[in-house]
């Protein structure tokens, strides 16, 4: 079956006043439909860089990225925007909800960019909110009146609302205590059981246990779980994660 994500030999070199930073060094990765993948790595290893590329927010310096078989590098800015609107869902560490807008309005936000017919919007938003188990009493609350765990579930609902090919979550539990974090991870797990594809970034090994598969990133390079264990065994001094 066609993988949802297929990247080959992706490099990303940042150019800044301080010089060049080689953040990704030939990363290749495939994610299958319905898979819950965890990308783990220490700070500065290139996780967010990889995530931005997978989310079509950034483009690789070299290498190819096929999203559902489509070569992303061939697309125009507007086509990329359309891809983000319809095929990708983002969950951020800092939630990034519009604070003054209601929960429902926040969840419906991506729909205004995907030309979803107006009458259908609320139906979809309510469905998405139901699948992250947010009680209906909260739908009309302003998002800044919610707890962290509730905010993150609203953010997940927002990522879901367009029924994307893949949900990308960058440290979604980073700002939450472990009990709330667990609730959010359970939500991801349930979505996976419902057939969603999820790519989650973390530096917390406990979080990675919820995933089907974990890959490790270290200094811009990817390793499988086995390679990582061998590496750690060969160099007992290195801690696998910060």
């Amino acid at each position: 079956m066609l993988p949802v994500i297929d990247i080959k030999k992706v490099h990303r070199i940042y150019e800044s006043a301080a010089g060049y930073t080689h953040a990704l060094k030939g990363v290749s990765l495939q994610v299958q439909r319905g898979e819950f993948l965890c990308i783990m790595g220490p700070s500065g290893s290139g996780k967010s860089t990889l995530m931005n590329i997978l989310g079509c927010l950034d483009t690789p310096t070299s290498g190819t990225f096929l999203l559902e078989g489509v070569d992303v590098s061939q697309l125009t800015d507007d086509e990329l925007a359309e891809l983000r609107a319809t095929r990708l869902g983002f969950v951020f560490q800092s939630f990034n909800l519009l604070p003054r807008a209601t929960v429902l309005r926040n969840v419906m936000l991506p729909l205004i960019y995907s030309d979803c017919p107006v009458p259908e919007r609320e139906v979809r938003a309510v469905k998405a909110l139901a699948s992250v188990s947010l009680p209906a009493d909260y739908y009309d609350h302003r998002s800044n009146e919610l707890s962290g765990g509730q905010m993150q579930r609203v953010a997940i609902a927002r990522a879901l609302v367009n029924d994307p090919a893949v949900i990308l979550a960058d440290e979604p539990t980073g700002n939450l205590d472990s009990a709330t974090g667990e609730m959010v991870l359970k939500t991801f797990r349930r979505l996976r059981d419902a057939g969603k594809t999820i790519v989650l970034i973390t530096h917390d090994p406990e979080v990675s246990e919820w995933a089907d598969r974990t890959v490790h990133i270290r200094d811009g390079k990817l390793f499988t779980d086995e390679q990582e264990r061998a590496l750690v065994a060969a160099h007992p001094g290195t801690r696998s994660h910060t």
Partner: protein
Amino acid sequence: MKARDLLYETASALDANRGRSLLTILGIVIGIGAVIAMTALISGIKQSLVGDLGLDQARMVEMYLLLDRQTSFDDYNNLVDYMPEYETLTIMAYGSGKATSATKSVDVSVLGVLPNYPDVMGTKLTQGAFITPEDEEAGSLVVLLDQSAVRNLFGNQNESVVGKSVQVGDATYAIIGVVESSASREGGRIYMPYSTCAARITGTWSFDSMSGLAASDVDMSTIEKTTKSKLGAYFGIKEEDVEDSFYVYTMQSMLDELNATMAAFQILMTSVAGISLLVGGIGIMNMMLTNVTERIREIGLRKALGARSSDITKQFLLESVCLCISGGIIGIIFGYLGAYALAGLAGSSITQAISTGETKLVPVIDIRAVAFAAGICILIGAVFGYYPARQAAKLDPVESLHYQ
């Protein structure tokens, strides 16, 4: 992105910044208010001139003869034939005297007029009837009073005076009617047959002013010139002296004169408006730039959720245009309110300065002025909002998402 989504986003963004938005649009309010007040007043003044006199009066022409020689009634009869472009032509003689009723006595101006005088001047009667050709023929001792004269001589301008008599100079006249007076004059005015006036008041048949009603197929823009040259030819005036020998006034020339007087006022108001609009526009731009900076994360989020650069441009552009339009709407309202206030304050003195009438000055709400103001607002919003909107659209999504 649908239009209603754009409008919703704009409304909620403006609502969130209500206080700041109100302060920012002040310049636009003042600028548009000035434009509207100015146009409303100027059209009001024109309206009160033209509208009051009626359509016919737009075809009225006044002629003053500044001649060395006396004129005669024959000259009048000849000129009627000589200038067929006038449907009606009439002459007037001006005099003055002391009028005395049974109880009161007052100085009045006396106007010797022909029976066709009302046809030209649009004179309205409140009582009785006008001078007849028989009166003119016989030089009858009949007069009409204007309302001021009735008030001064009989105490109340609505007093029924037809049939009563009044003494002017050394003769006693029967009152046959009352003429509506457009302005309150000192003593009042008395109308009598031209022949009577010539015989008893002025002592001469010579006239130095005529009024005519141009035929409806005559071009009013050229009549001033043709009338002057015809009068010049009739009276045998040298070509180079024609210009100084006659004054010819049409409604058009009065309007032209008015426009010239208004020009200074117009320039003043236009510069006030222009400067406020410029300052207002810069204020809007400043606020929009602040908006963009404050909402960098929101912009990054919107882009991550699938907003195209053009969606972001549209959103911020519409925000600034709506800001300007709301300023414009408030400005239009304040402009008209200001115009009414000014009209009440200065209206009577303005109208008195430019016409004889005591007509009320009513500001005119002109749909074209409103459309023009709205157009200006949209233009300012678009011009001054474009740069901030482009800045917003150009933001890099990754960087703006992590902006603190």
